[in-house]
Every structure is written in structure tokens, then in C-alpha cells.
């Protein structure tokens, strides 16, 4: 029999306690993973807006609470275009609208028809709208599919009826699930004439993107350049707060879980003091005795982590179907989420198991054997 088999057999003999500890770890892991995946999903949804255009660089107003609150005027857009190394800059107005209960966050993109191609938009059916049209729209192919619309049909939103002139594709799921309007018309509807939300930049060939980003950040301090989703927080403070809340909740979950693990291990230690004393008396070293206790906890923690991940799949499937999160939350189980699950379980075991392990190590065989 191996030491591991001895350990597993010992765990099996105390099934109720083992199950209790496993479930404590599982619930903590489920909480942490669900928070992580929710946060990551919301981050991806929010950051998807910067990926709509096929740009080298996106520019937004710095430090806004929500990136869709970013506001760049025509003067700033002109200054961006004047930055050395910028090949082109497309100003885009991005708004959201609740179309129906099942589509609570419909994205509306205002963009001039001449900017469609530089923006990376491919018209897959019909034709683009006219620049000065007030009742024309192009539907993303996903949105067209969702609403069952075709070229020539009518789309009702913003209290207006729009003629669908074309169907487009951007290659970005978020963008393709929305609609594009003439920039001037969307600015007028939202009462923000001359303003855009984001500027999508192409960098001149041979110029490093980072150089242009630095120039923009230096020359236009009220704006910020974003190249990756991880830099999204520069513009969107909500995301920073969300990440901080998730990190705080993770620490809290680990600490609560560690207390439960520690308490269970301590009870187990009291329950098994004579057993540990006996093992020490017949020649087990302190290291082996502590190894038995920590090893048992680690095995349960790993099982708990696996159960917790499975539970989080269920929880997120429910969350995704909630009306308030439908279309916004896309559960994305990344390797980071699994790593966090494992880390949580191991951290709980180490933190929670430390004190019982120290107590176990300090036990002398004789005092353990005489323990009642």
C-alpha cells in the first residue's frame, strides 16, 4: 500500500467530514470562479467595442465611468489625424438601446458611409445608407438573423422606422449583433452633434503602434489610447471598479473558506489526536504526520475545486439567462478561471491548514496517546 492509498482510505473512512470539507471548498471555488468568469465576460463584452473596427489603435476620452460615455469632438479628431504616424482616423458614435426584453443592450453605431471600408465593414447584402439619410440603417448579420430582417425590410428602434438598406459584417460578434446608422443622424437623435465616442486609427506603414500611442497620450492628455482589452481600464473606470470588487470578493471567499477548512481540520485533529500519537509512537516522523493531514486536505481541496468549477458552470448558465444579463454576459471559461479555481482551493487549504498542521507537528507521541 502506498502512502497515498493509505491517505485515501483514511478519507473514505470519514466520508461525512470529507464531504463537508469538500463542499466548503467547492462553494468557495464556485463563488470565485463565477465572479471571475462574470467579470471576464462583462470585460470582454465591454472591451468588444474597441475591436469592432479593424484598427491598430483606439482612442477614447480618459477616465470616463463607462467607455460609451467617452466623448471626442471634431477638433480633437482633427488633432488625432494630425499626429505623425497616423494614417487615418475614423470617428464612430456608439450608443446602446433596449430594443426588447430579450435584447436589452442593442448596439447602435454611427459612422459615415465613406468610413465603412476603412473601418473594416463589409457589406454582404444590399448597399450602404446615404450619408444624409435619417431613416436608413444597415443591420449586422447577427442582428438581422436575430430579428429576421432582410434588405428592404423595416426596423423599429429609437421610436423611428428605418429602412434596412444593407447587411454588414465586421468579423466581430459584438459589432455584428448591432446596427449602423449614418453618423449625422445618430448624432442628431442622441443630441450630440459633432461628437463621436471613439476614434479608430490606422497607423502609417513602418511606424510602431506604440510610438503613435505614446504621441497621442502626450499630445492629447484628455484622451487615452487603447491597444488591448487589458488597457481598457484606462478609459473605463467601471471596469477597474468591477475588477477591484472581484479581487476583493475572491480574497473574502478564500478567507471564509480557509476558516471553514481550518475549523474542520482542527476538529479532525482533535478527533484523531490519539491516532496521530500512535503513528508517531510507532515511528512516523513529524513530517509524515503533518504530510498526512495536509495531504488529506489537499486531496479534498482538489476534489472541491473540480466540484466548484462544475457548480459554477451551472450558476453561470442560470445567470446568462437572467433578463438583466442576457446578451451582456457571455460566460467565458478561460484557463485563468481554472487557474484561479485551483489557486483558491490550494490557498484555502494552506491558510486553513497551517495552524492545525503546526499543532499536529508540536504534538509529542506521549501527550497525543494520553489525549482523551
Amino acid at each position, binding site marked *: *500500500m502506498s502512502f497515498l492509498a493509505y491517505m485515501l482510505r*483514511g478519507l473514505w473512512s470519514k466520508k461525512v467530514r470529507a464531504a463537508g470539507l469538500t463542499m466548503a471548498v467547492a462553494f468557495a471555488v464556485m463563488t470565485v470562479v463565477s465572479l471571475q468568469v462574470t467579470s471576464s465576460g462583462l470585460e470582454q463584452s465591454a472591451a468588444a467595442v474597441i475591436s469592432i473596427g479593424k484598427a491598430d489603435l483606439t482612442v477614447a476620452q480618459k477616465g470616463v465611468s463607462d467607455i460609451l460615455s467617452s466623448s471626442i469632438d471634431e477638433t480633437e479628431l482633427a488633432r488625432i489625424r494630425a499626429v505623425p504616424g497616423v494614417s487615418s482616423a475614423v470617428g464612430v458614435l456608439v450608443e446602446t438601446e433596449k430594443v426588447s426584453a430579450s435584447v436589452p443592450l442593442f448596439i447602435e453605431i454611427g459612422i459615415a458611409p465613406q468610413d465603412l471600408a476603412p473601418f473594416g465593414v463589409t457589406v454582404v447584402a444590399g448597399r450602404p445608407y446615404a450619408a444624409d439619410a435619417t431613416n436608413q440603417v444597415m443591420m449586422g448579420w447577427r442582428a438581422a438573423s436575430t430579428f429576421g430582417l432582410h434588405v428592404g425590410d423595416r426596423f423599429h428602434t429609437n421610436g423611428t422606422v428605418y429602412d434596412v438598406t444593407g447587411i454588414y459584417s465586421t468579423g466581430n460578434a459584438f459589432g455584428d449583433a448591432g446596427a449602423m446608422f449614418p453618423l449625422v443622424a445618430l448624432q442628431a437623435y442622441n443630441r450630440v452633434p459633432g461628437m463621436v465616442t471613439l476614434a479608430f486609427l490606422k497607423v502609417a506603414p513602418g511606424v510602431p503602434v506604440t510610438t503613435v500611442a505614446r504621441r497621442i497620450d502626450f499630445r492629447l492628455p484628455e484622451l487615452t489610447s487603447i491597444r488591448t482589452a487589458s488597457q481598457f481600464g484606462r478609459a473605463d473606470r467601471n471596469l477597474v471598479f468591477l475588477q477591484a470588487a472581484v479581487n476583493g470578493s475572491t480574497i473574502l471567499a478564500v478567507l471564509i473558506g480557509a476558516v471553514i477548512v481550518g475549523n474542520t481540520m482542527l476538529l479532525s485533529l482533535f478527533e484523531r489526536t490519539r491516532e496521530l500519537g500512535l*503513528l508517531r509512537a*510507532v*515511528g512516523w516522523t513529524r513530517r509524515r504526520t503533518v504530510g498526512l493531514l495536509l495531504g488529506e486536505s489537499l486531496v479534498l481541496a482538489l476534489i472541491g475545486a473540480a466540484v466548484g468549477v462544475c457548480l459554477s458552470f451551472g450558476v453561470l448558465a442560470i445567470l446568462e439567462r437572467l433578463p438583466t444579463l442576457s446578451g451582456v454576459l457571455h460566460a467565458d471559461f478561460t484557463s485563468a478561471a481554472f487557474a484561479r479555481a485551483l489557486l483558491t482551493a490550494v490557498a484555502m487549504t494552506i491558510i486553513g491548514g497551517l495552524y492545525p498542521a503546526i499543532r499536529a507537528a508540536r504534538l509529542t507521541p506521549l501527550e497525543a496517546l494520553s489525549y482523551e
Partner: protein
Amino acid sequence: MSEAIRALGEPAAAEGSQPCEVDFDAVVKVYPGGVRALDRVDLRIAEGEYVTVTGPSGCGKSTMLHLAAALDVPTSGTVRIGGRDLSAIPDLSSFRRNQVGLIFQLHNLIPGQPIIANVEAVMFGTHRSGHERRNRAMELLARVDLAGREHRLPTQLSGGERQRVAIARALANEPRLLLADEPTGSLDPAAADLVLQLFERVRRRGVTIVMVTHDPGIARLADRTIYMREGRIVEPGL
């Protein structure tokens, strides 16, 4: 008695065995609170000797056994096993594992583990592989007439059977010194008799045995009996 139990008495050289005479030299043990359990005890037990220690409760019998097993340390004086001063041995766990077999009154088996695992557990940390540990445990359990019951839990055995498991466990690492604290104290006469026969067989292998007992009948079975009172040896065994 079965043939299997008889086989326990067959001579077998212990691997890596060391001389195992027991020497107590002016040993004093004072517990916290001032209880003087041993008071300048001088004692020599020769290798292969079968010695019983008897005396009233609280006279220091178990304390003497604990010191010999390196489970406790003397307040003063020296305990030597096989000529080695226990206070100079850096790894007492290894000493207990390889040199000493311990048997308690209440057999002290691990309740959640089958009896074969109870025997195997004391062999962790030895040179034996998992396969060898398993074979050795099977062999020992067969020798104490528990073949076929290896996978039972201790709670599924009688008191006498459990004590036989404890003896098998104590012999697992082929110790040269067997220390037993009232091994028959909780057994009925028939089970106690079987256990004592096992001790006799073990003694014939040349293992030094020190057994604490209250029972004068059992004490008489040994080569020598040591009488203790108030922490002192009051009448040396013959």
C-alpha cells in the same frame, strides 16, 4: 494453537538488527507538577531477556516503558538501548520505527483502516517497497492466525484478535526490543493465553521483551520480574 501461530516462534534474523540490551542508569523522571515517577532507577536487561515489570498503579512501570521506547525523556540519568544513549540519538522516530516494537493495553489500532493497513503503516519510511510491505503484513497476520481477515476493520474483530494485530504490527519492522504495556489487561483468559503464547514464541527468536503487567501469574512466565514501588525497583527479579 494453529500452525501459523507456531511459526511466529521460528528463528529469524532481523535485518540490520542491533544489540538490544536495556540500561537505566540513575534515571529520574519528574513530571510537571512535581510528581516523581522514577527515582534514581538503575536497571540492566540483557539482550534476549524476557522481563516483566509489576507493581501497584502509579509506581512508575509505564514511565519506565515510555523512556525505553524513546517516547519520553528522563529528567536526569541515562537510558541506553543497545549501548546507545537515547538522548544522543538525533532521529528518535527512526529509532522507534526500526528498533522498538510497541504494544499497548488497548491495542490502539487505527479504526478507519483495515488491519492490513494498520500493520503496513508502521513500515512507511523503511527500505521496503509497497509490494514488500504488503507481503510482510500478510505474512505477519497469517502468523497470528488472522489470514483471510486482512481487510477487516478493527471494529469487526474481537479484543483478542485486535491484540494479535497489534503484536503483528509491533513485529513488522523486526525489532530487537518489544515493549508491552499490559497487553492482556483487557482480554478474557482464553484470548490472554493466546497472546502470551505469541510472546513466548517471539522471545524464542531472541527478541528482548519488557512487559508491564499487574497479573502475578503472567509475571511469573518471564525470565525475571521487576517489582516497583513509588518510582523505585524494590525487589530485583531473579
